[in-house]
């Protein structure tokens, strides 16, 4: 069942699957396909909500939505509008960056956070490009760096409809809209991650040559109590190349529960 939802005047398309505790899936820059296998696997345990970000797919775009911070506010409104609680928030690539910003701003509706091959933080020095400049390499190079098996990415663009090609073009443009400069990161995010009070799992497609495994480990280190897990035979999009392993890792993490890894805050010990 898919639907359209109006969030503060912006019409958003949402893929909706399954029943159970809510899981909000935030897609990477290439968008999310309705027939995505990983969504069906996750739907066996969760009520999966997979919206297209403003400016992506067929979702609308308000004229003042121009930063990842705007997208994070959008999803806080989205969760409030649907009144979902104890949300498993899962983001891949650009979606991981949005998810991390959301969790830093307000984690009150979140139970767990899963960031997969996420961008969003600055790791190296000012002359080191942490994330490959996808706008400065050929499409062939981009495919080979993004996938463990680049053949899996091959598509006959000529066979697609104009509308399907429009969505590809729109997703590419919006990836630049939100990630052009500072390139694919918020310089302040890494420092803010120490605020995170949600159990966090970092998943990383081992063959990602857009954002390295080392970057993933640095991201993990910046988040209190976060756990790191590699997904073999997958690149930048582990949910596409290894949907079963990706879904199983999230299911296993959900089994660990929120309170097992949460450290007690001083407020917890102050009884009235």
């Amino acid at each position, binding site marked *: 069942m898919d639907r359209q939802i109006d969030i503060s005047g912006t019409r958003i398309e949402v893929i909706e699957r399954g029943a159970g505790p809510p899981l909000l899936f935030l897609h990477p820059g290439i968008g999310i396909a309705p027939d995505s296998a990983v969504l069906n696997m996750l739907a066996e345990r969760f009520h999966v909500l997979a919206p297209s970000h403003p400016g992506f797919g067929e979702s609308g775009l308000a004229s003042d939505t*121009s930063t990842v911070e705007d997208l994070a506010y959008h999803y806080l409104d989205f969760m409030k509008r649907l009144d979902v609680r104890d949300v498993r928030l899962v983001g891949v690539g650009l979606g991981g960056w949005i998810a991390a910003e959301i969790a830093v701003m307000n984690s009150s509706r979140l139970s767990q956070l899963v960031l997969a091959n996420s961008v969003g933080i600055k790791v190296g020095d000012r002359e080191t490009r942490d994330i490959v400049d996808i*706008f*400065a*390499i*050929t499409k062939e190079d981009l495919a080979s760096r993004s996938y463990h098996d680049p053949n899996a990415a091959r598509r006959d*663009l*000529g066979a*697609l409809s*104009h509308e399907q*090609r*429009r969505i*590809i*073009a*729109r997703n*590419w*443009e*919006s*990836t*630049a*809209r939100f990630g*052009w*400069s500072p390139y694919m990161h918020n310089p302040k995010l890494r420092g803010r991650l120490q605020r995170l009070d949600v159990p966090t799992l970092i998943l990383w497609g081992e063959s990602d040559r857009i954002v390295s495994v080392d970057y993933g480990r640095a991201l993990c280190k910046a988040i209190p109590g976060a756990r790191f897990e590699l997904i073999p035979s997958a690149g930048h999009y582990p949910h596409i190349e290894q949907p079963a392993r990706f879904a199983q890792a999230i299911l296993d993490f959900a089994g660990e529960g929120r309170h097992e890894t949460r450290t007690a805050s001083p407020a917890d010990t102050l009884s009235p």
Partner: protein
Amino acid sequence: MRIYYMTEQPYVPALKQHSGSLRVNLPNRVCDPQITGDLLHRYYDEYALCDELGLDIMLNEHHATATCLSSAVAIPAAILARETKRARLLILGYPISHRPDPLRAAEEIALIDVISRGRLELGLVKGVPYETAASNLNPVRIMDRFWESHDFLLKALSSHDEPFNWEGEFFHYRNVNVWPRVAQNPYPPIWVTTASKGNAIEIAKRGHNIATMGTGYASKSVYDAYKQTYRELSRPAPGPEKFAYLGFLAVAATEAEARARAEKMASYPRTAQTVFAPFKNPPGFLSIDDNARMLSGKAAPRTLTKDGRGIDPSTCSVQDLIDAGMMFCGTPDQVYRQITEFSDAIGGFANLLLMGQAWELNHAETVDNITLLAKEVLPRWQEYRPSAAAEELQAVARVG
């Protein structure tokens, strides 16, 4: 009726020194400062000759490229503002979409206008796709930034009574107060380039001059959109002085010699796309629909001949360029006929912009090109009246 001469001031040796990319990622170690200095002095001498012979001057800028050594157009414009005496100095253009600081642009423009004693013509341009890599400004919403920069710039140039404040979407300033103030009132004539009908409408609304570059006979639909906007706004029809067209010029005493020059100059369109592929079409530079069409591999050609044949500038012959109205080539008689026939066909323009030097056309050839243009073509061009404009005048007279 004016003729503006221009050269992109190429770093000539690079034509044979690049490895498939003349722009953005061609390392500047191939750029010899001695040769560069010699070339720039030569190009400024050729511009000075234009001033002496009655031609006007057009300058531009590009970034991180061997095709154009003018990386900051205000600098050659300032040099020529002092060195020349009478020529109009057309900057076409000033790539404001790629400038993070339009206040600095306003200051440069005002200073050049004052030094030249009010001879500046100010062209504002979106800039070619490759500039994005150098400016690092987001190519998404580039035209929104262009128009805010435009609005700020014109206000900065025309405000004289008190400093003003600007808190826009893209630019923030307080206490804007441009010293020295611009010489022309309220500011130099404004030109904008475009190849699109949508932009032509925006340019017409503001009453700026419109320039098309190398779009050949496809220019007609762009001009028509501009004229239609004037009609919809119930304004008098825009005269040919509102229109400009840029083509290549290879003129010589004999047709054979002109063709030989044209062959050298044809390296320019043939290498215009010699750039590492990812920099050719940054995201947001074209519309979603245009990009969707490009993904299908069926994009419409931008340059058309008079009979509607699409031209691929990267592989074209000199004859293709002539047929497309991109190049005017031959004896002075032939060139004059080609130019006026083309002007009449696309709706008539008074501002003829000519790239009279490109790549390996040497100094002697360029001087001859400029001299024949000034002595043999310019006097006739000054007497020319576009037939479309004449027809419109007659129509007005009949109605009156």
